[in-house]
């Protein structure tokens, strides 16, 4: 690690001036934030790495080029995505955020454990940052790893108000590397996010141009026979749903960016042959899951959501919205490698290059076809007749116990919320029936290449609180696709009275049951969720959990953070539609 922490030597006024000058200088060339310097961290720290402990950030709306088109994103110190905020474990961070827009704003430090009033969620942590005001965030930095920050006001996150947050460890990391690059994935639209939301609300499938057609029907008939095809299709038709409903907002409006660069702008990160490069991959997009791979390079996953995990060698990993994975790669050849991050619905991709010199590029892999949702999505629909599913591709379902999918008896759980379940609770860390941690998810072929699954994640060392859960809280992820209503337990945020209550310092199990046909990345502020993927005391901790359609996912939580915290689906428009709760710890 050649990381240096520069102490704050310039005056704040100067810093704000510098950053605005940057806005007219380096930034006018395009959208590459300077932290995304091709040299990475082996080079001199770039000018828009804002190093702690004292940092000033100015938020504006400015004219910029995105993917070669002039537009008006939200900028932070002149760049969009914003500068890298770099802190060091053990510091007392002091971050002054000045709002130079004409609308309120905020910054949430995603995945950071801090006092509730510093969490940056308007209406829960504080009032928000009014136009012209400066809010000073002060918090002790008690963790390390790869995180990010973003606005928690309205739909600003969709307008480029996000950036990487990297915290260097006080003690050396458990793994060695020579150089690092941050890879921040975002989805950009030239539409007003309010219109995107209205389109979703008023027209089902507005952005989906990969729906099934008559031609697909006949292709299926040829492949699976008439009877099977008719049965499978009529089941979807009966449900009035689309098996191609993978993503709500797609490449038909999104340009997928990597470090602010469109695929043809080809952001490039440099390496020297034989170096081990740490890639800090962050999904800072509003709505898009990505499947990332670097053809020709094995990736070793060493951290998930900023927390170290036992190394997992993979060829590809799916990264849900708001998740982060650190991977190590060691390119042995003096050639370029393509970083290929394909959107989950295959409607587009983000792309970058790892190369020994600037100006090189490698082949871009062929894009895959959109997958049809199969019976895994139907777990949500209790009265399903599985025999109708014949002829669908079950290969990826191989070792699933179907009996657990439909007709699972949740009744014994009903009304248990808030009561200790002395009997009938699974051991700490055990996998819930209905979890699918061994599956990578829709559209990924685990036979073809080694894809990361949640089951692969094991903590490097046990987390401190070893108590078994004292009680369980069960929440259903619910939605009405037709009206784009999203909720927990069938209630939008506007329809619930009162927060979800955690008792201070209790150890509890949160069970999330996805009754919808979409993946949801569920994020709890202020506390870690320890994903119960069957590894006992080595279960990994995360700030964001992807819950697949029909899946039942559980996590252990130590409710040690007194105060009110946001808890929501991190798909921006799902959250805005009401898939949001307040958790109160007292």
């Amino acid at each position: 690690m050649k990381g240096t922490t520069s102490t704050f030597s310039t005056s704040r006024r100067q810093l704000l001036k510098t950053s605005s000058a940057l806005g007219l200088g380096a930034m006018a060339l395009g959208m590459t934030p300077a932290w995304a310097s091709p040299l990475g961290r082996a080079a001199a720290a770039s000018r828009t790495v804002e190093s702690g402990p004292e940092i000033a950030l100015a938020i504006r709306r400015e004219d910029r080029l995105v993917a070669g088109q002039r537009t008006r994103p939200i900028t932070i110190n002149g760049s969009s995505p914003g500068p890298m905020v770099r802190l060091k474990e053990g510091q007392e961070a002091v971050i002054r955020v000045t709002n130079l827009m004409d609308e309120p704003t905020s910054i949430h430090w995603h995945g950071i454990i801090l006092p509730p009033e510093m969490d940056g969620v308007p209406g829960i942590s504080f009032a928000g940052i009014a136009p012209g005001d400066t809010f000073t965030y002060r918090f002790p930095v008690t963790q390390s790893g790869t995180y990010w920050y973003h606005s928690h006001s309205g739909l600003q996150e969709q307008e480029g108000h996000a950036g990487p947050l990297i915290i260097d460890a006080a003690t050396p990391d458990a793994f060695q590397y020579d150089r690092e690059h941050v890879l921040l994935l975002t989805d950009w639209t030239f539409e007003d996010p309010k219109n995107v939301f209205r389109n979703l609300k008023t027209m089902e499938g507005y952005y989906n141009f990969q729906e099934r057609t008559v031609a697909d029907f006949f292709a299926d008939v040829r492949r699976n026979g008439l009877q099977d095809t008719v049965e499978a299709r009529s089941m979807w038709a009966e449900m009035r749903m689309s098996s191609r409903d993978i993503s709500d907002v797609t490449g038909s409006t999104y340009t997928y960016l990597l470090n602010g660069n469109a695929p043809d702008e080809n952001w490039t990160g440099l390496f020297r042959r034989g170096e081990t490069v740490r890639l800090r991959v962050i999904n800072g997009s509003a709505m898009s899951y990505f499947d990332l791979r670097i053809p020709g390079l094995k990736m070793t996953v060493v951290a998930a959501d900023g927390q170290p995990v036992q190394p997992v060698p993979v060829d590809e990993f799916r990264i849900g919205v708001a998740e982060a994975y650190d991977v190590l790669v060691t390119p042995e050849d003096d050639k370029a490698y393509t970083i290929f991050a394909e959107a989950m619905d295959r409607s587009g991709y983000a792309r970058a290059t790892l190369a020994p010199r600037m100006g090189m590029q490698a082949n871009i892999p062929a894009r895959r076809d959109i997958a049809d949702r199969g019976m895994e999505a139907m777990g949500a629909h209790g009265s399903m007749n599985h025999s109708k599913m014949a002829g669908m591709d079950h290969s990826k379902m191989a070792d699933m116990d179907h009996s657990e999918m439909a007709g699972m008896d949740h009744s014994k759980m009903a009304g248990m919320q808030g009561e200790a379940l002395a009997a009938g609770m699974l051991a700490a860390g055990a996998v819930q029936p209905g979890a699918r941690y061994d599956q990578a998810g829709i559209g990924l072929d685990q036979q073809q290449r080694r894809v990361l699954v949640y089951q692969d994640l094991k903590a490097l060392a046990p987390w401190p609180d070893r108590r078994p859960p004292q009680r369980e809280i069960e929440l259903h992820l619910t939605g009405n696709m037709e009206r784009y209503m999203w909720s927990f337990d069938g209630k939008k945020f506007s329809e619930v009275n009162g927060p979800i209550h955690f008792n201070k310092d209790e150890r509890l199990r949160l069970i999330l049951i996805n009754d919808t046909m979409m993946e949801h990345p569920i994020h709890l502020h202020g506390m870690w969720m320890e994903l119960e993927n069957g590894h006992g005391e080595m279960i990994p901790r995360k700030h964001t959990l992807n819950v697949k359609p029909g899946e039942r996912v559980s996590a252990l939580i130590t409710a040690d953070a007194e105060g009110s915290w946001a808890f929501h689906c991190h798909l921006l428009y799902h959250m805005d539609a009401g898939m949001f709760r307040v958790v109160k710890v007292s």
Partner: protein
Amino acid sequence: MSIICISRHAVIASAASAALSVMPLLAYAEDGYDAPADWPSPMAEHLQWSAAFDRLEYASPDKGNNALVWDFQAWYGSDVNRLYVKSEGENIQGDGEDAEFESLELLYSRLVADFWEFQAGMGYQGGVFSDDHEERVYGVLGFQGTAPYRIETDAALQFNEGGIVTASIELEHDVRLTQRWYLQPRSEIVVAANESEALGIGRGVNSLRIGLRARYEITRRFAPYVGMYWERQYGATADMQRAEGEEVENTGVVVGVKLMF
């Protein structure tokens, strides 16, 4: 709100006030998580609106005059409670008469199931800008939504003066040929419980109309189409039509556009 102030029609007013009383402009959770009163709600609910011409077409029947036909729908409201304006009508070209609202309805609509809204309100039939056409005012009760197999359904009862009750059912279904080409069969049927010579309504099935349109979505909000239709009147309704020298069976072609705003 102004709807209530200016409207004298009790039913419309009550439907509208029912809708507005359950449609707060901003929804706050009464959740007591110790937020000071001057803080904003972390999530505000936004009311939405939609307005669309499902059909705006020029129809050329085999027998009789060409006509400009519209089928319009707009709503404003929340996920559950909405206020609808629906209108269907035509302006027959060269008949010396002004355009006619076959229906102009103001409805309160409530989501009662994932795919279904219950609707109630008032309707008007008559001239758009003139007294060229017979006028009637009627009450409406209906269900609108998506039936299994994605059949867009609008089924309503009309309560006319003198206890005359009719029912109309409109069904549409989109067959996706490509990502932008759609084939849309549609049908409309009108049935009556009793007879009214004044309204030209006979008992039983009054009329049936079946159409097929091929639509190309240039954008999601702008989709021109061509199509054809067949329509026929039955029973006493047909007799009354004949008595007036009108056709009881007709076919035609249409060219038009589907517009969403």
